[in-house]
C-alpha cells in the first residue's frame, strides 16, 4: 500500500493528468489507500493509473459495490487495483446516487470486470455503460429490485410451492 504521502502524490499526478476535479478526495486508513474519484471520470482515471502513471497498477483484483445508507450519495463502487511488479495495492472509489446510478464500464481496460460489473448491477442497480453483456448474473433475469441495497428488506422472500405459486406476486404477472 502506498503510505499517506504516496497516496497524496498519486492523487496529485492524477489531477494533473486527468483534470483538477477528477480526484475528489483521498483516504488512508488501516493501511488501505483509497482515491475518491468523480464518477464520470472513473474510466479516464483508471486508464491513467493503468497505463500512464509513473507507478502503474496493471491489474484490477476486485470490483464491488456497497450501499452507504443513510449517507449521500448512497452507492459506492470500489475498484481494488493491484500492481504485481511493485506488490502494491490502491483502492479507487466512485460514489453515485440511486437516482443517477451510472458509471462507465471498465471492461475494455480490465476484462476481469465483466462478471464483477454484472454482479454490482445485479445487487445495487448501478448501470455500467458500455458493458458488453449488461444482464443480471446471480439473481433470476425477471427479478425486480436490487437485493443488496440496505433498504431492501432482509428475508421475506416467499418460497414457491405448487400450492402458493399462483398467489405469490411476480409469478403469473
Amino acid at each position, binding site marked *: 500500500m502506498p503510505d499517506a504521502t504516496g497516496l497524496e502524490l498519486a492523487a496529485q499526478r492524477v489531477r494533473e493528468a486527468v483534470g483538477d476535479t477528477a480526484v475528489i478526495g483521498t483516504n488512508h486508513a488501516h493501511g488501505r489507500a483509497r482515491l475518491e474519484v468523480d464518477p464520470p471520470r472513473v474510466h479516464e482515471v483508471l486508464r491513467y493509473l493503468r497505463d500512464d502513471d509513473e507507478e502503474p497498477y496493471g491489474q484490477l483484483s476486485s470490483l464491488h459495490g456497497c450501499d452507504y445508507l443513510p449517507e449521500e450519495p448512497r452507492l459506492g463502487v*470500489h475498484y481494488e487495483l493491484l500492481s504485481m511488479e511493485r506488490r502494491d495495492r490502491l483502492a479507487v472509489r466512485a460514489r453515485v446516487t440511486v437516482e443517477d446510478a451510472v458509471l462507465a464500464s471498465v471492461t475494455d481496460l480490465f476484462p476481469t470486470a465483466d*462478471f464483477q460489473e454484472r*454482479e454490482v448491477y445485479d445487487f445495487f442497480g448501478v448501470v455500467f455503460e458500455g458493458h458488453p453483456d449488461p444482464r443480471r448474473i446471480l439473481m433470476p433475469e425477471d427479478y425486480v429490485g436490487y437485493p443488496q441495497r440496505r433498504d431492501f428488506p432482509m428475508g421475506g422472500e416467499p418460497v414457491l410451492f405448487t400450492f402458493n405459486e399462483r398467489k405469490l406476486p411476480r409469478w403469473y404477472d
Partner: protein
Amino acid sequence: MTDPLKTPYREREKSISLDAMNGESPISGMELEPETEMLTINLGPHHPATHGVLRLLCTLEGETVQNVQPIIGYVHTGIEKSCEDQEYWKAITFVERMDYLAYYFNAYAFCASVENLLDEEVPPRAQYLRVIHMELNRVASHLFWLGTGALDIGAITMLWWALRERDELLDLFEMSSGQRLHTRYFQVGGVMEDLPPGWEAKCRRFLAEMPNRIDQYEALLDENEIWLRRTKNTGIVPVEQLLGLGVSGPLLRAAGNPWDLRKAMPYCSYEDFEFKIPVGTVGDNYDRYRVRMAEMRESVKIVEQALDGLPEGPYITGNRKVALPPRHELATSMEALIHHFKLVTEGFRVPPGEAYVPVESPRGELGCFVLADGSSKPARVHMRDPSFVNLQALKHMGEGTVIADFIACLAMLDPILGGIDR
C-alpha cells in the same frame, strides 16, 4: 489378395459395392450436408462433471466446442446479505459456507478484515495455528479437486484414494474444533481453542505419510495415457490474457507467473516459513495438475515447520472487548461475566471504516471486503471469490477443444459453485 481383416476399416468400407441395389442408395437423404451444423446444448446444471450447479451453454460443431457461456446463480443464497443481519462474530459462520471446500480461508479473510478495522493484534501462536489449519485445508481442498477432477476423466480410483486422505484431515479438523466441515475455528482475534492433546502427534503421522501418498497418486496418473491425452496441451491460455481476466492461484502459476500472495504480500506470519512456489511452463491442463500436486507437498512442509516452531502464548487476543473470556473466569469474575454477556448478546462494535484483505486460497486470491458503520453488524461483506473470477477464463480455455478435453478444462479450473454464487 490381402487379408481383409488386416486392412484399415475405412478402406474396407470403401470397397463395399452397392451396385447390386439397382443403382439406388439404401441410405438416400442421409448424406452429410456440405456445411456443418452447429448444435447448442446445455452442459448442466445437473451434470456431475460441472462440480455443482453450473450451467454451461455450449455451441458445438461436431465434437468441437465453439462457444461457451457460463450461466450461474442456481445456488445463490444471499450469504452476503445475510451477513449484514448478523453480529460480526456470528457472520463467521456464514462466510465459511461460501467456498465450502476452503472454509478456513473464508473465515480467515473475514476475521482479518475485522481485525484490520479494529486494529487488533493477533498473538503469534494464533497466527501459527491459523497457518497450520489453512495449509491443511489447502491440502484437503486440492485432494478433493484431485479426486473429482480425475473422476471426470474416468479415473475412479483417484476419488477413493484422495478422499481417504482427505478424511484423515477432516478427522484432524474435528479433533481441533469439533466440526469436520465449516469448523468456525477462527475467531476475531485468534482461534477458538488451543490444540487438544494428541493432535500434534496425529498431525505429524499424517504429514509423514502424505508425501508417499502423493507419490502414489502420481504413479497412478503420470503414466495413464487417458489422463495424459486429456490434459497435455489442452486448455492453454496465454499468461497476459489470464492476467487481464484477473485469474489468480494455481491457474496463473501453471502459466508461468509466480504470483502467490503468501510470498508476495505475506500475511499471518507466512514470512517465517520456507516454501517454494510451484510454477508451470506450458500452461496446459497438465501443468495445472502438476502445480497443485507440488503445492500439496509445499503445504505439508509449511505445516511441519509451523508445528516445529509453534510459539508458546495465548491462542486468542486478551482484549476482552473482542474475545470471549475463558470459561473458568465466569464463576469468579464479575467483569468477565459482564464481558461474556455483552459479547454474546450484542457482539462487539467496530469503528466505521472499510477493509479489503486478500489471501491466497486454494483457488486464487480470496478477498474479503468489509464495510463497518460503527454498529455491531457489518454494513457490507463482500467476498471476491477466486472461482467467480476464474470462471471467466473457461471460455478461453475451452473454445476450440473437443468436448472431452473441455471437461478436463473444467476439472482443472476447479470451480466451487458455493463460492461463485454465494
